[in-house]
């Protein structure tokens, strides 16, 4: 993934930084209403027809950035929302189509090409239920204002002259969860959605976005009574630039008010040990194969689209949950903020009481900027030593399978297992189909929703090829090579016992 920062991404990040600043200075109520005008006025570059429309879109984006469903609070002003921020219902669905922004996706779904022969039958004209097709100078045209995108004309044309354009969001969704309706508004069918976030990246108009908890996290950090822990996903290495060392980021997190900072790779060590043993146990009991469970999109893909093998998925919790449960066990009052590359973790966290908030790397970056922290100039550094190289290698595709292989090798059980791994939802779907049909020669399948694994996640900021190498380098520097040697991980895993299960 190249992670190109488009003008729209910049706009979104400016919203995040502004909201973070207002919250820090206790000026949210006072200033939020003026933010759309500040960011989109006659002097700023324009992405849509006029600054008023731009501002309407910004309002929706701001509501999402504040952590709320813009549809649910459609009629509430920003200032009203800011006043009631602690009372309003937080957004559970996370990924949303912003109706004002999507409104005019300029893609005409059906177009008649030069291949039109102006045939006598005019099959397209008679097929159209809305009389949207007109014949002008020996050629058929679609009146796009009338077209309801039913596709009947395309089927009807005997010359194949009618072209179907698929909207980028529809094309991006591998599970057909997005449909554009009559009014040409895209909408997400949440029953079908697996939360992969591909649609968020695909829309060139920024009309599909995820909600954030930036304000909520800053408020936690500001409250002297609350102890807030940061738990950072293994893929954090290099996200703020190849020159920013992991230790600097840790020191900065402490500076902005986190009490403790832990590597989620410690949770991954625990998960690796658990999952390796679970795998052997299940195979010995006669189960033909097991799939990994640490990527929530992959797991959701199995549960929703391959229910016949849902019981073959590992029941071990994800590294995020393992670590959060562990820390909450010793300190139930502390708050837990997961920081990662992932949108679907926001959905996973909604279902888990042990995670209090989720931030993506880009959201964290915006918080740091709002606080005036520049990591490239940062001097402090804190040692990071929670995890083994095993846990740290969970960040990229193939990492999990390889770690489980190494654990079982230590125990002399490696020969029992045939490993395979797959990344990217389309590929995952294909591999699972083969698995169901008995055509995939493996008995452990690692699946990652994002291309390249979590380093390629939608909330990441760097080219995943670069960060994969940096992650591997960081893993090589771990105190232990094997998860087995991380005695703390093994003890903690055992002390959690059932809490390691979904």
């Amino acid at each position, binding site marked *: 993934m190249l992670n190109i*920062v488009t003008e729209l*991404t*910049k706009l979104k990040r400016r919203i995040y930084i502004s909201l973070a600043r207002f919250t820090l200075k206790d000026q949210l109520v006072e200033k939020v209403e003026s933010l759309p005008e500040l960011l989109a006025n006659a002097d700023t570059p324009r992405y849509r027809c006029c600054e008023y429309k731009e501002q309407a879109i910004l309002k929706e984006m701001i509501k999402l950035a504040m952590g709320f469903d813009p549809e649910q609070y459609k009629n509430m002003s920003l200032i009203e929302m800011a006043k009631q921020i602690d009372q309003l219902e937080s957004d559970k669905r996370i990924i949303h189509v912003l109706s004002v922004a999507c409104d005019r996706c300029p893609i005409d779904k059906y177009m008649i090409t030069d291949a039109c022969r102006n045939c006598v039958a005019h099959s397209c004209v008679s097929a159209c239920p809305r009389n949207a097709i007109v014949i002008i100078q020996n050629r058929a045209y679609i009146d796009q204002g009338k077209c309801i995108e039913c596709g009947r004309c395309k089927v009807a044309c005997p010359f194949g002259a009618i072209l179907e354009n698929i909207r980028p969001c529809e094309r991006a969704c591998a599970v057909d969860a997005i449909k554009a309706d009559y009014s040409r508004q895209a909408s997400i069918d949440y029953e079908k959605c697996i939360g992969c976030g591909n649609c968020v990246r695909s829309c060139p108009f920024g009309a599909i976005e995820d909600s954030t908890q930036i304000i909520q996290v800053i408020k936690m950090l500001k409250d002297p009574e609350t102890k807030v822990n940061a738990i950072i996903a293994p893929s954090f290495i290099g996200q703020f*630039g190849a020159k920013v060392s992991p230790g600097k980021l840790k020191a900065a997190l402490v500076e902005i008010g986190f009490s403790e900072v832990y590597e989620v790779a410690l949770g991954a060590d625990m998960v690796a040990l658990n999952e390796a043993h679970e795998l052997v146990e299940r195979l010995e009991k006669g189960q033909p194969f097991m799939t990994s469970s640490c990527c929530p999109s992959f797991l959701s893909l199995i549960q929703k689209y391959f229910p016949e093998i849902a019981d073959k998925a590992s029941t071990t919790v994800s590294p995020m949950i393992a670590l959060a449960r562990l820390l909450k066990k010793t300190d139930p009052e502390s708050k837990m903020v997961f920081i990662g590359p992932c949108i679907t973790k926001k959905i996973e966290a909604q279902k888990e009481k042990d995670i209090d908030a989720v931030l993506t790397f880009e959201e964290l970056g*915006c918080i740091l*900027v709002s606080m005036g922290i*520049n990591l*490239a100039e940062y001097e402090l550094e804190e040692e990071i030593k929670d995890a083994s190289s095993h846990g740290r290698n969970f960040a990229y595709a193939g990492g999990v399978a390889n770690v489980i292989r190494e654990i079982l090798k230590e125990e002399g059980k490696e020969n029992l297992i045939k490993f395979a791994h797959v990344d990217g939802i389309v590929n995952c779907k294909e591999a699972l189909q083969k698995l169901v049909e008995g055509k995939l020669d493996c008995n452990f399948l690692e699946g990652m929703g994002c291309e390249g694994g979590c380093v390629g996640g939608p909330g990441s*900021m*760097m080219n995943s090829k670069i960060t994969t190498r940096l992650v591997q380098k960081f893993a090589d520097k771990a105190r232990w090579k094997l998860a087995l040697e991380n005695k703390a991980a093994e003890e903690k895993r055992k002390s959690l016992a059932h809490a390691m299960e979904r």
Partner: protein
Amino acid sequence: MKKHLVEVCIGTSCHLMGAQDLIRAVQGLPGEKLNSIQLKTVPCLKSCDKSPAVRINGQIFAPITPEELIKKIT
């Protein structure tokens, strides 16, 4: 020929606003053009509010897009 000195800021603010894209744009120039450029990264150009920032032969431009940067140096 005198080399252009292009300093791209990779401070956190500029990083968020696409410093990597600026670097990639310069690196993507064809060989002979690239040879006439000395590309450096710097930690801050004190224009954080206008990020992303670059300094070309001593003069700061912020904000700047990859397209604008390429225009200025070719």
